[in-house]
């Protein structure tokens, strides 16, 4: 990113190639609608391009990139009348069995996908940051603007629910 800030366009291409698929999946699985996900995904990269002159190498580029993505998602949820907090309030205990509407599903993968979709937004985001971006709890906290305890709790709940979804696998 520092090279790109200095005017090296090839450096951006390298960065883009490294992060494009993971970032796209992170956005898509949070948004679920591909057209909207593509729009937000493009906004994230445009923000990276615009903010290159202000980029400080104080944290990993990945953390910075996903922080931008998180902020764009929050904007999107706000526009849609949703919020991370309200979704978290709908949270259910981690040891709750699989939702009733998924009992008919036979395929583990389908159950897993449904469980991922059913996760509260903050938990799903924490899980996706962990899984797609390879972030630690501390990095998730930084990227989402939450404290470490909250990030850890979100991730733990998400993992527990997904694990429960594939328990009989």
């Amino acid at each position, binding site marked *: 990113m520092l090279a*790109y800030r200095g*005017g*090296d*366009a090839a450096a*951006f*291409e390298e960065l*883009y190639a490294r992060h*494009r*698929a993971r970032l*796209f*999946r992170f956005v*898509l*699985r949070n948004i679920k609608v*591909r057209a909207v996900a*593509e729009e937000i*995904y*493009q906004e994230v*990269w*445009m923000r990276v*391009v*615009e*903010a*290159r*002159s*202000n980029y400080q190498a104080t944290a990993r580029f990945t953390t910075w990139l996903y922080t931008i993505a998180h902020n764009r998602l929050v904007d999107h949820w706000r526009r849609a009348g949703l919020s991370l907090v309200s979704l978290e309030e709908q949270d259910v205990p981690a040891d709750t069995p699989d939702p009733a509407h998924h009992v008919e599903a036979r395929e*583990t*993968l389908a159950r*897993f*996908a449904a469980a*991922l979709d059913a996760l509260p937004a903050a938990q799903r985001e924490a899980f996706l940051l*962990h*899984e797609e971006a390879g972030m*630690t*709890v501390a990095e998730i906290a930084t990227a989402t603007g939450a404290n470490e305890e909250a990030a*850890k709790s979100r*991730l*733990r709940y998400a*993992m527990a629910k*997904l*694990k429960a979804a*594939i328990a009989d*696998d």
Partner: protein
Amino acid sequence: MTDERDPKISRRYRELGAEEPSRELDQAILAAAHRAADKPHAPLVTPAGRHRWYFAFGAAAILVLAVAVTVQIERKGSEPEAVVLDQRASPQALPATEAPGAAVRVEPKEASPVKPRYGFTSERKQRAQEAPRELAREDRFEAKEAQAPQVESPNREQGANSRNVGPAAPAAVPALRGRMAASAVPLSPERLLERIAELRKEGRHEEADKALAEFRQHYPDYRISEDMLKKVERTK
């Protein structure tokens, strides 16, 4: 602990698919990045809407302020000199038509044979000399000085110990004007003579001679007392 991945969950997650952005989207983003890299850094937030006029308004305000401050400094700079010039005009120097205490500027004549040593050299002085009022006053001086000798030596004055001051005597001796102005004391013949005596006392005879010559030129009828004459004239 939560930092460690659960392999079963990770595997299931990978099985969900590996969606990627479309090729068009990639190209659009890369093209934008290339365009940005070719250009110098633009401001992140360009002035738009009502913010745009802030810049023009700010620049105009700075310009007006700078001009106002400059004019103010210019005015203040000219005020002390004006006061000093006012003080130079003693009540005796004022013509009958002038009220005492009114601001009168009396400048040395340019055609004077004795060059004023302590005269003002600023442009303001020249502007003041060009004022019509000054010219009218100087015309009166010229008429008077046409009767007086152009150059007088100190020796010639040694025998003259009795002179009278005319009703419209000139206001100042140019050679001493600068000093008197600096000390902000109204010019009177007595004070001028004291200054000449001081110069003499300080051993600055050249200046004293010159000042005395000017004094006599401007006050041809002034009677210098014996005591003062001893002080102001060079002793042989």
